[in-house]
């Protein structure tokens, strides 16, 4: 009478072990899929935030000719500054990758900072209403770039730490999710230039 009961017991145990194994596989599968999905959406949010940065870089790019022309009206012999701005602007226009854009926009930022120093020597220019308006808009744009850059870097940090952390790193390697590039601000440019009237 024991033989049959033992067999039933073994069967029961076998079923339960099978269930446990299946359950563990299911759990691993769920965490695998959710890791993959979270990597995809984090990657997308980094892209979206980079789009915001690009919008503001473009806004700055568009504002420069107007500003330079106004300054030229008062300070026509400051050729060196105008040239460095023109060069940086051309470089930004030709930039393709994120790295190139970051380098070119940092160059443009320091050229603009030099322009602001030059402006200090022209009281008449500082009193010009149109110039004042342009300067408010320029410093507003610089600040927007700083804000979107900060938010971009936060997203990159979140994404990169996910990509490098176990066990997500396995999935990241499997599907080719590499770390993303930070937007490092030019030295001394963490604070947007501000005009004082």
């Amino acid at each position, binding site marked *: 009478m024991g033989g049959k009961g033992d067999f039933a017991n073994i069967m029961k145990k076998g079923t*339960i*072990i099978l*269930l*446990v194994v299946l*359950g*563990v596989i*299911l*759990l691993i599968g*769920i965490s695998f899929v959710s890791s993959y999905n979270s990597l995809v959406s984090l990657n997308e949010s980094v892209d979206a935030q980079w789009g*915001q940065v690009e919008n*503001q870089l473009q806004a700055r790019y568009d504002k420069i000719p107007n500003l330079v022309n106004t300054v030229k009206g008062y300070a026509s012999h400051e050729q060196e500054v105008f040239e460095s701005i023109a060069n940086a602007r051309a470089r930004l226009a030709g930039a393709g990758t994120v790295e190139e854009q970051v380098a070119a926009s940092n160059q443009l930022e320091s050229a603009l900072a030099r322009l602001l120093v030059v402006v200090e020597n022209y009281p008449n220019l500082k009193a010009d209403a149109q110039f*004042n*308006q*342009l300067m*408010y*808009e320029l*410093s*507003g*744009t610089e*600040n*927007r*770039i*700083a*804000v*979107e850059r*900060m938010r971009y870097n936060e997203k990159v940090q*979140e994404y990169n*730490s*996910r990509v490098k*952390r176990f*066990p997500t790193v396995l999935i990241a390697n499997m599907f080719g999710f590499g770390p993303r590039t930070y937007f490092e601000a030019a030295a001394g440019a963490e*604070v*947007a230039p*501000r005009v*004082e*009237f």
Partner: protein
Amino acid sequence: MKRLYIILVLLMLPLAVCALSPIPGTNVHDFAGILSNEHLLDSRIEAMYQRTGVEMAVVTVPDLGNESIEMYAVKLFEDWGIGKKGEDKGLLLLISLNPREMRIEVGYGLEGALPDSFVGVNLQKYVGPALANNDINGLIEFVAILEERIIAQGDAVPRAAGETEGISRYETNDGPNPLAGLILFVIIVALVLLDFRFTGGMIVGAILHSLLRGGSYRGGSYRGGSYRGSSGRNRYGGGGRSGGGGASGKW
């Protein structure tokens, strides 16, 4: 499970404490104690809210804690969620005592109606002298100028008196499907029971351990959590954001 909960709460605590909380029931948050007759300014802002639907906070702080006023403003704006999420029609007038700086931060949704040069010129014209002379009327005038411009640009959506902004809106984040969640929950409970029956909870322990180690990156839920439970009227917490638009100056 209880211990896990306590650990989670302790992890969130430092984040909640360092955030500045709005004073309930007012639009003027004079943490530096430099304004007088604030209630006049508060009711002027309240009137603007009813006529335009634009939320505005006036905040004074003793110092900026090693941060530029621009970054301080954009973080505070996002932290308090001034304006409704998606609309982003909020304004923040931030005044710091040491250094003596001021900034008007414009939400994303008002950047069209309120260009930087417009708010910058009027900040210098009204707010600077008002602070220097401790005259609340200059600040009231500034609010009136902003309101006029918002209405003229067609960005005003009048609200009923006393209508409060949705703290609940804040909590209706897109969650997972409840049915799927229930099924998953039942499966997990069954697995946990099986695990405890056969391995004494080894697998559950290992999973919890890895979750705890990896869990700290989900920082999103602390935002605004410090005032969610406070009683009284609270107009912020709608989830509005700004992107560095506006203007700064000294006073």
